[in-house]
């Protein structure tokens, strides 16, 4: 699975473990987005501030935390993550009241549906302690993928 939507707040460790225990192995995510946002090295030769600005503006991943100037770019990075990691589905896990992730979600879901990539979604809070519903949802999601693949 690719786990997405958690860029602004790392989910509790128990939540990530619960997802994996339910049969969804997380092969990519957007935790600590700042570590992976830039898609290539920032050239060291030029004006550092200018090069950094250009890198963030033009060579950074499309995520919910930024504006996509072109409609065609929406979801490109997520699709790339799914393809290159061999993921079989996407789990949207956004922090409650995280406007960027929650507003982005329906647009990404539409794109995933178009590409026939299964997905599921839930929200979490930093003090989420009850993992049973999440484990159940992730487990059902994993089962449904197995069923679809077998069909």
């Amino acid at each position, binding site marked *: 699975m690719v786990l997405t939507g958690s860029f602004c707040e790392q989910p509790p460790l128990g939540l990530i473990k619960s997802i994996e225990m339910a049969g969804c192995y997380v092969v990519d995510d957007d935790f600590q987005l700042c570590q992976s946002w830039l898609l290539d090295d920032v050239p060291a030769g030029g004006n550092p501030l200018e090069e950094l600005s250009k890198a963030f503006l033009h060579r950074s991943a499309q995520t919910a935390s930024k*504006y996509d100037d072109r*409609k065609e770019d929406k979801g490109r990075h997520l699709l790339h993550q799914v393809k290159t990691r061999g993921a079989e589905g996407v789990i949207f896990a956004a922090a409650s009241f995280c*406007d960027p992730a*929650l*507003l982005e979600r329906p647009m990404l879901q539409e794109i995933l549906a178009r590409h026939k990539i299964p997905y599921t979604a839930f929200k979490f809070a930093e003090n989420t302690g009850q993992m049973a519903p999440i484990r159940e949802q992730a487990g059902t999601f994993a089962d449904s993928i197995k069923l679809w693949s077998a069909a």
Partner: protein
Amino acid sequence: MSTVTAKKQVVKEDAMLLQKELINRNYHEVATAHNEGRKISATFVPGNLNELLMCFDFARRLPETDALQNGMRKKSGKMIMDAERDGHSEDVCTYVKTDLGMMLQGEVGPTGEPMPHPDILLLSYTGCFTFMKWFELVRQKYDCPTVMLHVPYQGDGRINPAMRRYVVDQLKQKVIPALESVSGVKFDIDRLREYMKESVKAEEDLVAVLQTAKQRPSPIDGYFGAVYYIGPIFTAFRGVPEATRYYQVLKEEVFERMRSGKGPVTPEGELAEEKYRLVVEGPPNWTSFRDFWKMFYDEGAVVVASTYSKVGGVYDFGFRHDPEHPLESLADYCLGCYTNLNFPQRIDMICRYMDEYQADGLLINSIKSCNSFSAGQLLILREVEKRTGKPAAFIESDLVDPRYFSGANIKNRLESYFQMIKQKRSSSENVHRH
């Protein structure tokens, strides 16, 4: 005797009726625009570049106004639920969901006329992140061109020349060419100057009206009444002669009340006695707007100033559109929007209102789904209390989601707040007496 209970007559000022007429007329213009060969723009209230859009003959849609109008007409609840069924989270801005729900329900506007697709989305970004995602969502549905005007946040609490230049450059290099290309109309800066001359007149009169609340008793309610007063200038009418006339009528009406020592007009008539003077921070609830207002006027509480009545432009500290420097002035307008101010600026503004309008306290109406207003409001509350020594209170509701308006809880909270003000006032009188 008839079994049908007669509907209570709602009292409205002449200016309120005129405002309604203007807003309805705009909906009709939007509904018929495509048939008449006109293009339609959509943009947001804070940082709306109405004068610029008029230079290209656009009929002008404002999605937040559509949502609040649907809220006041009790239509938003179903729209929000439809949007949630379509995959939108219950946590996000309910204006967005009302807008998207309206599309899902067949694109009929609040007045019952068709709401055609916009031909361009002018994404003027003034401190509310949701705006960006809102128009991305609309673009995904309508596939219409979007032009973004990025307005830098006033992080340092001031507008510096580089910020102004940055916005002006975008206007020249991106926004104006995009508007020209979609509308097919060539930009004429003199036309922009002419609209701005009208804007200034309306802005002067609006400020004069809002500042009458410094009088005792206040002849207006600076929140519940003011949301009617700001309607034309914050939407599709800033810069048109009808808006100038509207503000002249309003000013005459309010000044007359002020001269006669009258209080504000409420839906149940004139307020007889002003007991509490409040400053309010945050937008109102629209779905139970009258019930909410009644909780104030029943107790003799008048809002003398509010931050929400500045959401589409902060004019009371001196800013006016400047026809001599039209693009720079559009930049300053956007940069100076309330949602683009940092917290120290917002706190200073509220403290200034508390002082200049002789308020008894601050009330914060925190909107569940509006992060651009709600984030940091508790910090604002504590700081204003510390600086002014006046009591502050905090209530919670929502913009247009009727599920989040709990009348009984809000009423209880308000009543105990008014008691607290009374108590504080009498203990302070006792101190002065001894």
